[in-house]
């Protein structure tokens, strides 16, 4: 069993029994990781939105807490919460802030925008790999798919970015 997973499962069960201390502990354990993930995806200009999405994620987690410990396929709560955070970003259609004078060399802003425009699972795959630097098996767990499927989503996301860049270059050469 992955380290910390046993504690996550027991905390989830305690929350199901209405124990407030367990709830505090879960928030304490994972709030930082979830907030950082959302903030990295939306950009530092969207601090307030990131805080809202984080709150929504934990609220959603609370509603689904009974479903969290699911036999042998239970993943660490941190990864499960990252999955829910990705869903919340997609649900709220949360996007990075629009900058009035966009710097064409700001590759990070372009990456964030590209992720926001992707299919939910592909965007999450590339964000987890690049922003969170998770290993392949954790990316798969956070997406709720197999390792093979996770790598496929990641490759698709990279292909999409390449395609978009190629189109951009083509437009630029026609305009030029």
């Amino acid at each position: 069993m992955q380290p910390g997973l046993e504690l996550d499962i027991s905390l989830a069960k305690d929350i199901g029994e209405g124990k407030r201390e367990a709830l505090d502990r879960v928030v304490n354990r994972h709030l930082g990781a979830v907030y950082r993930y959302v903030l990295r995806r939306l950009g530092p200009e969207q601090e307030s939105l990131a805080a809202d999405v984080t709150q929504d994620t934990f609220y959603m987690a609370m509603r689904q807490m009974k479903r969290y410990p699911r036999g042998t396929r239970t993943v660490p709560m941190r990864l499960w919460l990252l999955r829910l955070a990705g869903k919340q970003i997609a649900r709220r259609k949360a996007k990075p802030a629009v900058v009035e004078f966009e710097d064409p060399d700001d590759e990070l802003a372009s990456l964030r925008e590209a992720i926001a425009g992707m299919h939910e699972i592909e965007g999450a795959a590339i964000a987890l790999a690049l922003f969170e630097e998770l290993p392949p098996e954790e990316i798969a767990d956070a997406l709720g798919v197999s390792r093979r499927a996770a790598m496929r989503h990641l490759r698709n996301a990279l292909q999409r970015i390449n395609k978009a860049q190629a189109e951009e270059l083509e437009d630029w050469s026609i305009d030029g």
Partner: protein
Amino acid sequence: MDSLRRIYSLGKGNLRPIRSIFKQRPTRMSKAEARLEAALNQLRDGVPLNWTQLEDDPEMVTLARLHAVAQEARSQGLEALPPNLQRNATERMSTRLPRPKQQIVKVAPKSLAGFSENVPVLTQVEENINLQSRVPQWIGATLAAGLLVTFVFWWTGSNFFSPPKSDLTWIEVQQGGKPIYAANPPHDYKAPRCPAWTTMSTSPYIIRNYVPSPDKNKAQGDVDFPIEYLPESVIVGNTAYTLTYLDTAIAACEGPGAVRYSNVMLAYIAKWNTGSGQVKLGTMSVFEGRRQVMTVDAAQGKWKSVTIGDHKGVLWQGAPYKDTSGFDWFGDTIVLAIEHDDITTTVVGQASNGITEEMLAGIIKQMTKAPTAQPASQYTKDLKDGTPIPGILLPIRPDPNKAVTK
């Protein structure tokens, strides 16, 4: 063949083996997916992709470029969380917290005072009733009872609710600036005053300025105690961990007796060995100091005293934690501070990333079994009068009674 044998046993009504065949089946990946997975692991380890990996693979080129771009994002959000975020999140969640189940306690029906239907009430003999006033007796009895209750409260308070007495010399737990599990340094001990170190007004922590040391030998030369490095791997129960050493930094005391109160910070990356690979659990910091009181703040988390072998100390868990380099650990942080002789070792890790109490205890246990002190600068105690003198570094002299073998 082995698989066939297991399937054969299915015929005997045993369903378990065939299930285990599917469970153990490795994930089949296409060549491209496997290459991508290997590239991800390589980038995580800080090794750039090579030409062979990038050649004719535009996705891999993009991955390498974006991994570098995302470095900036990875350093974002490491500062404090927005104020009220934790409180707001907890409050919203608590609206959906189910009510704790109340245990139904069956209460035995009481019979009326002094009356039972089953017991026949006998007629009583008429008593002589004293018609004198009993008020003074009552006042006396009430005062005596009051005194007795006060005494009982005082006695239980002083014996049961006073802070537990600590048997630690250098580790202290404080709450609101007051020691609740006090360190007991020698009576002639004077706390070091180093101008470069700052004391926090809001917490009991002393913040030191650590300067990276180029190598282990140089670091060992700067301190007056043998630096204990963590073991490279630890096995706790069925779980194996790898601890990758990153660097050493020294906080020298610039006051009088500069070397005497130096403090060491070691940085590690903890990884969990899954069997098929390794999963990074996060960084761990280790602080070592000699004859310095190490404090933990009970207000920010829960603590308990621990004994690991002949090492005693305190285990603290909570958030946030400010370590002695001034770094804030957000999220559930676990701190194990132990002392041995006059040296304190404090190991800090992120519990939310999977660093557990058992893992930290395992590390200390292993260190106790096989000390990993660096032999670069030989260290010994001055045994002139049988007591160690702090701050004295002496080369170990060869034992003349020991035969030299070549």
